Each structure stands twice: as structure tokens, then as C-alpha cells.
């Protein structure tokens, strides 16, 4: 096969893996954003973080009802602790996503994209 054509195919393979790997990294990030408490699940979005901060700033710090991802009402006893936990979870997941994404950007070969950590 023509050398330049072979290289083009190699690049195409690399791009397919890179695109798939970026999507998986995003899925892993989103999976990491799910926070569980008292049988309820909350996806830690910027909206949730902002709303919970608003509750705290408005003085709703105890026994406050939140609606989870499945529209289930849940009473949160300590809203500050809940906020600290979801904020921590958000940053942990975001940092992991950042590391994975930055690492993917640096790679130039399929083997490096799928190398075990």
C-alpha cells in the first residue's frame, strides 16, 4: 500500500479511537457526578450546587426537602454537609475528567490512548 495512504488510514483509526475515548471520558465524568443519599440520587449539576448554596445563604440549613433525579422528595437533615459532599464530588469528578481529557489530547498513537493507568 502507498505509504501516505497507509498513514492516512492510521490517522483515521487513531481519530476513531480518540473520539470514542473522549465520549467514554465524558460518560465516566457524568457517572461520577451521581451522589447518593438516603436512597435518593442526585446528579451534581451546577444548578444543584447553586440551589443548595442559595438554601444555605437563605438560612435553610436543616431538615430541608430536595427533589432527587427520580422526582422523589428527600429530607436533608444537614444541608451544609450535603453541600460540602456534592461540591467535593463535583470537583473530584471534574478533576479526573480534566486529567483524562488532557492526557488524551497529548497522545498521538492508538496504543497510548488505551494504555492502562
Amino acid at each position, binding site marked *: 500500500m502507498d505509504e501516505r495512504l497507509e498513514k492516512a488510514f492510521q490517522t483515521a*483509526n487513531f481519530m*476513531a*479511537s480518540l473520539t*470514542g*475515548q473522549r*465520549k*467514554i471520558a465524558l*460518560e*465516566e465524568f457524568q*457517572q*461520577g457526578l*451521581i451522589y*447518593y443519599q438516603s*436512597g*435518593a*440520587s442526585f446528579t451534581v449539576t451546577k444548578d444543584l450546587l447553586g440551589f443548595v448554596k442559595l438554601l444555605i445563604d437563605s438560612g435553610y440549613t436543616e431538615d430541608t426537602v430536595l427533589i432527587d433525579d*427520580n422526582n*422523589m422528595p428527600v429530607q436533608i437533615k444537614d444541608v451544609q454537609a450535603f453541600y460540602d459532599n456534592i461540591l467535593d464530588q463535583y470537583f473530584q469528578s471534574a478533576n479526573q475528567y480534566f486529567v*483524562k481529557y488532557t492526557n488524551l489530547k497529548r497522545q498521538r498513537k*492508538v496504543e497510548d*490512548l*488505551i*494504555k*492502562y*493507568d
Partner: protein
Amino acid sequence: MTKGVLIFAQNNSEIDYVKLAVSAARRVKEYLNVPVSLVTDSPDHLLNLNAEDVFDQVIDLWKVTDYRNSQIQNRSFHDGTLKKKILKWNNFSRSDCYGLSPYDETLVIDSDYIICSDNLKAVWDNIYDFAIYKNSYDLSRWRISYDHLNQYSIPFYWATVFYFKKNEYTESFFDLVQKIKENWSYYRLLYCIDAGTFRNDYAFSIAINIMNGGNPNGDFASPLPGKLYYTVDKDIVDSIQGNQTRVLVEKESFPGEYVALKTSGIDVHLMNKYSLSRAIDNYFEDAL
């Protein structure tokens, strides 16, 4: 309330489901830290695998059910895009899990479901009676996803992983699955299912639809945490290491060509049993 995981493993002439179940059970213990019981028609095979101590209980289908008269069907098992075989497929025992499970709260997983996170820990001690995956993500991203049984039909649920609490509601649900199984040719036509083979996914989806009174947004089945990530048997499992898996996913329109991908820290349903079995062998060889 006792809690634990139940895994089904019914071997055929080529696929050692018991070996896959042993590997899955070790992962459950590592990531979820609950006891695991095995339902199998080949309990003696555990001795060959030196895995008698992996399971909390081993439930022998020959002893506890009318297994001799149970149905068996055939289906094709792929090992990548280019290789396939027609083999026996014993998947009719799943509806018996209510009676077979020794636990009050049970998480049932397929033997080819690779746990790589503690995500499913969230299922225990919640208010739900029954939880199952509806949302899924195919690592290929180009294949048509399983949202509904077909374009005119009801929502699709994955019987790969599900949780139930023993009570009268869930007992009724599994009775219903049993009836659907016994009258499969009728339900298959009623719900416009093309495939002739019985699939637990279909039977569960139909039973959930009935339990919901035909309302696709009914509340009988709660969602399990996150999504079900999967590859099909036309993809190839390259290897597994810790909480990471490496797979070759078939390319669209190029049979026999694959895209290499890696997952990290997410549970994955890897349907190619041949290559999964090889990957498990290599994993344990590397560990020794």
C-alpha cells in the same frame, strides 16, 4: 434484612459461564462487599476452578427446580464480527430468582457484567421494591440503541442487572414473568417482537409494562444508578486490568475492523463470552 448478589451460570458445550460467574463474584466482593450466591446446573465444576469458597451459597438447579424438563433454545454466539457458532442457550431460569434467592434484598447480575465501581452499592436499603436499567450506552455509539422493544412498542429494560426486595409486589412481578415465558409465542406476537428466541430482557420489559398498567412512565420499576454500559458479542474484549477494560468495538460498515477503546471505573456488560473468557484467563495468569 439480608442482602446479596445472585448470579446465574448455565454452561453450554463451549462457554464456561461458571468461570465467568466466579470472576464476576470476585469483583462483587471487591467493589460491593456483599455475599454472592450462584445458581447453576454445573455445581461440580466449581471444584475444577478451585472456587468453592467464592460463593456464599451454591444453588443447584437440578435439585431445586424441575430442571430436567426445562426448555432449552439455540442462538448464535459471536466472537467478533467474523466468527459465530450456534450453541445451546439456557436462559429460562431467571424468572425463578424470587424463589431461588436466599436474600431479602437481591441484586441479580449476569455473569458477563463486569463490576468496576461501587456504583451499585447505592441500591441497598432504599425505598424501591424493584430497580432495573432502562438507560444504556453502547460503546460503539453507532448501533441502534435499545430504547424500546421496537419502534412501535414499549420501553426496553435490561434484565442484565436488577434489584428486588422480597414482597408481594415483586413476587407478582416474577409470577408474571413466568407466565410470559410459558406463553412466549403469544406475547412475542402481541408485542411485535421479531426475534423468535426467548429473551429475559423482553419478558421483563413486558412484565414491567403490565405492572405499570400499560403506562410507559409508570413507577413499578425504579432506575438503577447511572447507565448500563455495554458492548455486544460482535465486539472483542481485549483485556481486563483492575477497574479498567480494553475492548475492540466493531466499525460501522467495515466488518472485521475495530476501534480500540478503554473504560475506567465504570461497570460494563461485555457480551462476547469467548473473548471475555480469554481475558479472564489472562488476568488471573498475570496475577499469579
